[in-house]
């Protein structure tokens, strides 16, 4: 066992672990906010398009996170971190797909 000096990498570990769900949260808020504004202004036609576009972008970013997580090596803890980060990103892809389906099924701004 040796002591370690300060490192930037350690500070980035947690954000990376949660990256998938941070992407999910950003997409969620963006879509929610856009829908609220769009429905007030009567742009209901744009809503499904924007939702699908946002989901595609978010899923792509999560794909990158998954790849980065699976490629991570080093210590046992580092590999564990990468694996969990990838799984977290996969989980958020499932959640994003779930939350995109209504765009095809529901009339956007009906009350």
């Amino acid at each position, binding site marked *: *066992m*040796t*002591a*370690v000096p*300060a*490192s*930037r990498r*350690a*500070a980035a*570990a*947690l954000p990376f*672990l*949660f990256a998938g*769900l941070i992407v*999910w*949260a950003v997409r*969620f808020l963006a*879509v*929610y*906010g856009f*829908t*609220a*504004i769009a*429905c*007030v*202004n009567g742009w209901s036609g744009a*809503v499904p398009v924007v*939702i699908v576009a946002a989901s595609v972008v978010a899923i792509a970013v999560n794909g990158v996170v998954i790849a980065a997580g699976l490629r991570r090596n080093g*210590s*046992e*803890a*580092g590999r*564990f*971190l990468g*694996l*969990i980060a990838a*799984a*977290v990103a996969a*989980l*958020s892809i*499932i*959640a994003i797909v*779930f*939350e995109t*389906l*209504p*765009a095809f*099924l*529901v*009339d*956007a*701004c*009906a*009350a």
Partner: protein
Amino acid sequence: MSDTTAPDLPNPLPRPPGELEELERVWRRPRGIRRLTEVNNSQIGLYYIGTAVMFFLFAGVLALLMRAQLALPENALVDHDLYNQLFTMHGTVMMFLFAVPAVEAMGVLLLPSMVAARDLPFPRLSAYAFWAYFIGGTIFLVSLFLDVAPRAGWFMYPPLSSAEYTPDVSSDFWLLGIGFIEISAIAGAIEIIVGVLRTRAPGMSLDKMPVFAWVMLVFAGMIVFAFPAMIAGTALLELERAFDWPFFIAERGGDPLLWQHLFWFFGHPEVYIIFLPAAGFLSMIVPTLARRPLIGYRAIVLAVIGTGFLSFGLWVHHMFTTGLPAISMSFFSAASMAVAIPSGIQIFAWIATIAAGRMQLTTPALFVLGFLFIFTIGGLSGVMVAMVPFDWQAHDTYFIVAHLHYVLIGGMVFPLFAAIYYWVPMISRRRLSERIGKVVAVLLFLGVNLAFFPMHVSGLMGMPRRVYTYPDGLGWEVTNLLSTIGAFVIAAGVALFLFDLARNLRLSTTRNAGNVWDAGTLEWLPTGTYQTRSIPIVTSRDPLWDQPNLAADVEAGRYYLPGTATGRRETIVTSSVDARPQYVLTLPGPGWTPFFSAAFTAAAFMLLTVKAVIPAILCGAIAIGGIIAWMWRADIGPRAPVDIGGGLRLPVNITGRNAHATAGTVVLILCAGTLFGCLLFAYFFLWTVNADWPPAGAGAPSPSWAAIAAVLLLAASLAWRAGRGVLTSHDQPRPRLMFRLLVLGAAAAATAAVVADGVSLWQAGLRPADSAYGAILYAITAYQAFLTGALIIMAGIVFARSLAGRIGGPWRLSFEVTALFGHYVVVQGLVALAVTRLFPGVAS
């Protein structure tokens, strides 16, 4: 990394004489009245859990009163006004004074020993949080006896709770009392996050961390992001009640739905905030009872993280009947179903572990089985109400009461009982009685099902919730009588549990019953007031099972830090991912400041409820004085490096990125930022509900003032940077005067910026009471002023420290923390200006 064979252990035997005595001396617990000064987390954890159980009993008695009233139709035991207070107090106390504090208390109690730290990094913060909760909560209860208890339901919807319909002080009690207790929960969360990340035993890398530590990390993270929404909501509603700022009054551009958004943005995660730690108990208990390692550790970690995040995407499912756009509601309906996936993963992992092992039917095991049954029913009725059309039917009926109690009692109360029966041997000379415990478990199980199952039926027959009585002849008599009988069966079970505690609970740190379950995790190492004699090197997830002779070697002092290296209370700080030792952190010993600061903070809030403004300000000032005294002694600066064994020489008390205080400040900033985000949400929300934004006739604040404010803010940031440069420069002697001027200048610039901002609002003719537009602008500025006030105090301390020679060179943690916060204040100020001044009215 060294392995576990004896010759490699860091410290040789025999240990020098006097080493243990010295360790005992620095960790000695104060006696008599000075017990109030103890700050050690294990001790505070005990007070904490005891208090939470007391609040549970209190709220339970209120429930019995309600059930007694509802036993028969047209009963006259309790009138409608008292009934309103009863259900409001019952729900509020259960949720805010029992459920969250109880699990937070278990974290504070168990985590230090589970990660084999001597203590978590901010003991005084925990002590402050506990006393604030204890004193504030107790005063809150008293309101019921004075007939001023809140009565608008545990979620306090305006307009019912607003000044027009509740003119007395009862809602103020709720808003200030509960708002205040949220602050204490946040303080505890900061302690838990930094503790879990930075004080784990060497070698306990993230992949070897006990599930409970993962769970508490996510739990505390959720508090950091959820509770500020609640604080924002209560602050806005209190501003409306006290000063008539119309956030929720539709005639003046406000909207009661804003409250519902803020409340449920907090309130839904709250359910998981309660449930996750309880699940964490189970992930610790189940493997021990099944006598094998947990199956699916990684899946559980994933599930815990997933639940923590996804639960924030659900808040609107409490508002399906409020007329939002259909598509928005369907997001939340979908998310409600998605969040069931991670919960399912955890349940399958436990069942698999039980099936693969040999589970004995001990008392904790009975509670685990009870949990599985009750929580599953709650989950099923939950899936039913997540369907929008079904919710339209069940909304506000007893079906919901049944659902929420199945979830909360199954998901939290049963695991808590399992945890108490399981962990009492760690803190008590005798374990609790297995025989009595089994009877308790059976009584609670039968009682809960008898009390709450019939409520589903009452609800489907149309019985609304929150009614103090009901007429004869609607067919509701039988189910209600059964519910009442069930409630009293629960009470009998709880009474028997108290009897067991009285008979067998004999608190002791040094001579506890010990590892009676033959469990594998570190909280079962032999302990003293200093936790473990030496700090082990961990190489496995269940060290006591996999590392032979660990307990004996730890107790003999063969691992790290077998005595006190600095002559003070201290613990080892390790890196967050790999848990490699980084430095030794000295910890504060007993002192009065946390207790007194907490008492006077509580007094200040409670005096505000009854509008005693001057005494409240006095108490607030004393509390701040106490906190200043505490901060003054907090940063004792680096010391000479020390040996902890195995040839490892560690620095003592470092500064910079890796320091514990930096981590704590970052968490605090996340909290402050979330609160600010909630205010911005309110701004945009009010914008979407108002056709005119800004409303016709409202003045526009002049852009030149905003520009001045922005320049001042940037100047403040530059001054913080320059101050750091001066402090770390190698010039001899250091230019102290320059440093002091920069600190004062930075604080002054931030202050001037917020003043300029306020003046510009006023000059434009805006008044907070005129419209929701004015109100939210002033609220954002007021929040900026509040943070600036905190910054002034911090800067003042740094300035005084510089005068006293308590800062300079490597001794600068208090400055770095202040500067970090100072930069945040600048960023927030700039964002606020950009949002409110650059484009008002662009969207419509």
